[in-house]
């Protein structure tokens, strides 16, 4: 009976995501009713698209990549949050706990300062995030004490260093041009996303999501104490390493594509737990869908609310926090 209820939630969520994606194609400042969307999709699939068609350009080069990216990043951050919460055996952890955001943000600023070329900025952001987590991992290696606490402490240290390096850069850049572009980048937006970005980001993100999806049952064991998990035959170091790598790749790419988007990785796992409980076998697929819905919804609001777009990181928390608070009050923190 329970099983059917969970299946029901699952298909309901998938359906909502598809519906939301379709609706998202039609909304925006450029008028593009649903009829035209269907016509354009049909002609794109079965015949040649008319050249210089503004509606086709808006649909396929502006809206579609943006929607795909929102779903990819939202789903990725959600499942990264689930994975990290399992690894750290703590539901308060978000994917940034190991310093990936701080490292990637520093990379963004460095890129803007040195090259000001979008692709190089993205690469530096990704590299910065990976380097930060690698440092955290090396620093947190200890064979004598609780590795999880060591990792958290190492993450705090590395984050602090990269955050102050970021401030140092911001203090020294040109106040009129470079500083605003650093700040706006870090506040997060999907507005400039092109199909090329999607092509570049989708492969590693999908791979990382797939890895966590395949490991979903093993995540249950990771939440036990290390010794318990090991006594049950789990290779804790390997599994933990894989989850951390997957979560880091997702987070680093998300900063490199659309700035630091907080809250998705923290809140969506909890929303998932309210629906299907703590069992990661069910939680992972549900979190993937909820993450996609959540970020796509937020991005739509960012597009529509005012004539100038509101940065994503503001909205994810400004909308997410009250909603989360309400749910928390209603359920009393008892997930299920």
């Amino acid at each position: 009976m329970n099983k059917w209820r969970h299946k029901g939630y699952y298909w309901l969520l998938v359906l909502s995501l598809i519906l939301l994606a379709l609706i998202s194609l039609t909304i925006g400042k450029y008028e593009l009713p649903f009829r035209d969307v269907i016509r354009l999709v049909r002609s794109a699939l079965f015949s040649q698209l008319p050249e210089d068609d503004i509606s086709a350009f808006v649909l396929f080069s502006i809206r579609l990549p943006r929607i795909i990216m929102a779903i990819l990043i939202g789903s990725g951050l959600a499942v990264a949050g689930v994975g990290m919460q399992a690894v750290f055996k703590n539901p308060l952890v978000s994917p940034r706990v190991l310093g990936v955001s701080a490292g990637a943000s520093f990379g963004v600023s460095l890129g803007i300062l040195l090259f000001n070329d979008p692709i190089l900025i993205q690469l530096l952001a990704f590299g910065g995030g990976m380097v930060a987590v690698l440092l955290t991992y090396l620093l947190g290696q200890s064979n004598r004490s609780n590795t999880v606490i060591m990792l958290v402490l190492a993450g705090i240290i590395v984050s602090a260093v990269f955050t102050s390096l970021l401030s140092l850069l911001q203090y020294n850049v040109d106040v009129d041009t470079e500083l605003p572009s650093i700040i706006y980048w870090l506040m997060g937006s999907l507005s400039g996303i092109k199909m090329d970005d999607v092509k570049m980001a989708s492969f590693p993100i999908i791979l990382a999501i797939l890895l966590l999806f395949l490991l979903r049952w093993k995540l249950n064991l990771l939440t036990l104490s290390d010794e318990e998990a090991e006594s049950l035959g789990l290779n804790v170091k390997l599994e933990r390493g894989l989850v951390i790598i997957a979560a880091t790749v997702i987070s680093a790419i998300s900063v490199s594509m659309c700035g630091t988007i907080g809250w998705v990785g923290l809140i969506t796992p909890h929303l998932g737990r309210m629906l299907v409980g703590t069992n990661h076998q069910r939680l992972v697929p549900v979190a993937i869908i909820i993450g996609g819905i959540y970020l796509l919804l937020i991005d739509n609001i960012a597009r529509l609310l005012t004539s100038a777009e509101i940065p994503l990181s503001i909205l994810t928390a400004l909308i997410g926090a009250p909603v989360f608070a309400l749910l928390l009050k209603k359920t009393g923190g008892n997930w299920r």
Partner: protein
Amino acid sequence: MIFRVEQGCFSYQELVLLQDINLTVQTGEMLAILGPNGVGKTTLVKCMLGFLSWSKGESLIDGNSIKGYSRNQLSKKIGYVPQLKSFPFSYTVEELVLMGRNPYINFFSQPQKEDYCQVEQVLKGFNLQHLLRREINQLSGGETQLILIARALVAGPELLVLDEPELNLDLANQLKIFETLSKLVAEEKIGCVINTHHPINALQYSQKSLLLRGKHDYLYGETREIVNQKNLAQTYQLSPTYFNIFNQKLFG
């Protein structure tokens, strides 16, 4: 199965914690490990299981060193029941016990029907099938401890190692745990190693005892020869009249 430790020594940095430990436990046998806090009982158990590696000496299963076993193979042979504590994420009883099937579930796989069947069977054996859908954090201490034992059993081990299974349990629940364990030892032909602070439980249920007294000092043998007033008073540094007072007040 015959599980043996031969000349096991464990030192942490310069400090020698365990020296020259020799013990044997086989199917149908229960071994109780007793000793004061901080003397190294948990370390001994961890070394036996291979969580920590002996500095010298080794643990053997049927004469083969456990170093030759992979983590996975080992957890099919030896089940471990940790000390009772709450879980940061609350699973249902079924989900938690299912985790014991991990050695049979491949890297990217999910539990199959067979795994669920095993879980149900073991819980039935404990008369706990009604708890299947309950949340683990809502169970009583005694129930949770039984569930942890069930989790160790679903992998079908031949040796069960328990770290203070009576921790925080009342006398009735302690009795229940030990009755369950000695029934398992007698019927299902498994061996049992139990870390305990209660000599009475050792006396009543275990055939063999190991009394860890200090860094290089331990007694090992038949329980009735090891666990007696003199040895206990000496090991725990009790006054010689401790047991007399206990006797008088409780039974006098």
